[in-house]
């Protein structure tokens, strides 16, 4: 993955000045589209309510302050709890996915057996059906198991839909581990399990870390429909649902809602900036033949 490579500016890549201006204008328009909700959201979080609810519209905050970031803890009493819940649900989901996916990906990467293509295809097909389609039986299943209004009602279905991409990603990674290692281990009399546990897993660790990060981000960013439908207890709500309840009220205190949103997206932003190198590779794996 060479997305962040520094290449020498060859003749072919020389631009005339107006081309450079055009490229930058294009990039800024593109990024403005992608980032304007965040910029606007951030500015709103700094504006006092009186300025927010006034016409004409003013882009820049006057007397801006971070007051909303302090007041929101009172307005959204469960805020800290919601953040904890979001993290808790994402971490447990990631652990479940890893436990299931690491052995499965190894099986797909290293063994050839009858029906493998079919099983792999079936796994990938899972990602094509969203949870929304299966909501009714899942709801009944959770009710039968007595899991409604618990963390598990959000974790168990959520994790299932994170499995396909995780398998695909890790399989791609593990296929690059040389088969000679398996052969050498076999010659030394190591069992299949020993080889997997002591030879393959340590080598695959960087790949597993990438899969863990991508899965965590997926789990953190897609907490909505199961949490909306399978849980009605405030103390288990993840952040998006906690804020959604707040968002639906008659008089929305927008500056505090935006402040809360920013604190909620902070973990994701931190991950982007520290791990972008792994991320781009991880998120686009399989896109291009390596």
């Amino acid at each position, binding site marked *: *993955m*060479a*997305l962040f490579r520094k290449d020498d500016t060859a003749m072919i890549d020389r*631009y005339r000045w107006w081309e450079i201006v055009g*490229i930058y204008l*294009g*990039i800024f328009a*593109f*990024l403005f*589209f*992608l*980032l304007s*909700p965040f910029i*606007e959201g951030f500015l709103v979080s700094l504006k006092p309510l009186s300025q927010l609810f006034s016409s004409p*519209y*003013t*882009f820049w905050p006057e007397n801006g302050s971070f007051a909303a970031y302090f007041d929101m803890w009172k307005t959204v009493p469960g805020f800290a709890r919601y953040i904890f819940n*979001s993290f808790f649900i994402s971490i447990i989901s990631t652990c479940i996915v890893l436990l*299931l996916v690491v052995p*499965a990906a190894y*099986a797909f990467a*290293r*063994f*050839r*057996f009858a029906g493998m293509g079919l099983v792999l295809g079936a*796994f990938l*097909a899972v990602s094509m*059906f969203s949870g*929304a*389609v*299966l*909501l*009714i*039986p*899942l*709801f009944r*299943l959770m009710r039968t198991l007595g899991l409604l209004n618990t963390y598990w009602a959000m974790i168990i279905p959520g*994790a299932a839909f994170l*499995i396909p991409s995780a398998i695909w990603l890790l399989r791609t990674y593990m296929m690059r581990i040389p088969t000679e290692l398996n052969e050498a281990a076999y010659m030394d009399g190591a069992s*299949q399990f020993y080889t*997997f546990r002591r030879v393959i897993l340590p080598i695959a660790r960087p790949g597993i870390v990438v899969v863990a990060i991508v899965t965590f981000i997926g789990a*953190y*960013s*897609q*907490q*909505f429909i199961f949490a909306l439908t399978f849980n009605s207890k405030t103390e288990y709500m993840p952040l*998006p*649902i906690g804020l*959604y309840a707040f*968002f639906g009220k008659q008089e929305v205190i927008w500056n505090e809602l935006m402040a809360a*949103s920013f604190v909620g*997206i902070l973990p*994701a*932003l931190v*991950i*982007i900036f520290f791990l972008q190198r792994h*991320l781009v590779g991880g*998120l686009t794996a399989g*896109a291009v*033949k390596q």
Partner: protein
Amino acid sequence: MIKSRSAMIFAWALLAPAILYVLIIVAWPLFETFRLSFTDASLRKVVNYVGWRNYEKIFNETFLTVITRTFIWTFFSVLLKMIIGMCGAVLLNASVPGRNIFRILTMPPWIVPMAIGIFMWGWMYNGQFGMISGLLQRFGLTDGPVAFLAYGSTAFWATIVTDVWIGVPMVTIYFLAAMQAIPKDLYEAAWTDGAGRWTRFRRITLPLMAPAIITMSMLSLIATFNSFDIIWILTQGGPSGQTTTMIIDTYNTAIGSKKYGEGAARAVVICLFLSMFCIAYFRIVRRLADPGKA
């Protein structure tokens, strides 16, 4: 590749937990959806089989409108994602200073919790105080405030724009990766022969990226068809059903009105469309991987 008998047993043992999990959480519910669609399941304890009655009941003009609307909504959303994603990939592929930072800056809509991004759009679309209406008024493009989510036609496009916003980063990064996999010497050869930038894009980049574009459109089609959060948070399918897609419709029937049987029938129709997309996708991918076979 390892093929011995004990190895095979080991391989299935490795797969078993994941297979079991997916069978219980995805395959069984899928089967249940089909079964329930032939029943009058609701909150009551008793469940009776009613044959095709649910299907007879749902296939009316309203439902056909919902299907048409879903397809139009999905079509424009996917089309815009592809066009904007391609433009973004071309721009970010240009060798200008700062491009690494620009590439990172495309990612937030994709990575942050979806619902929270949608809340921000909810504010942007606010008629009285939101940014879009505010800026339009300031530049004199509209006379008064525009409450985007209050009218069917604007709400329809507003939800598409938000969906595009969430989808574009992935498409861009994916296209960018595919673009960089194109051998550099092709461009150099064309450049030596005097081909301009546009010709090189038209004759080298686009044809060589066709597999990536097709794959991404199919994946995007499936994801967009399944889109729930955006419409639910912004409009809940309103005003007066103008943004009700099949998923929203199913949710309202099943979870809103607790008509599980009828909701299941609606979900089955969605599943049929999704399976068609899914089969088409696998066929295309196989064909792209092995052109001689097809």
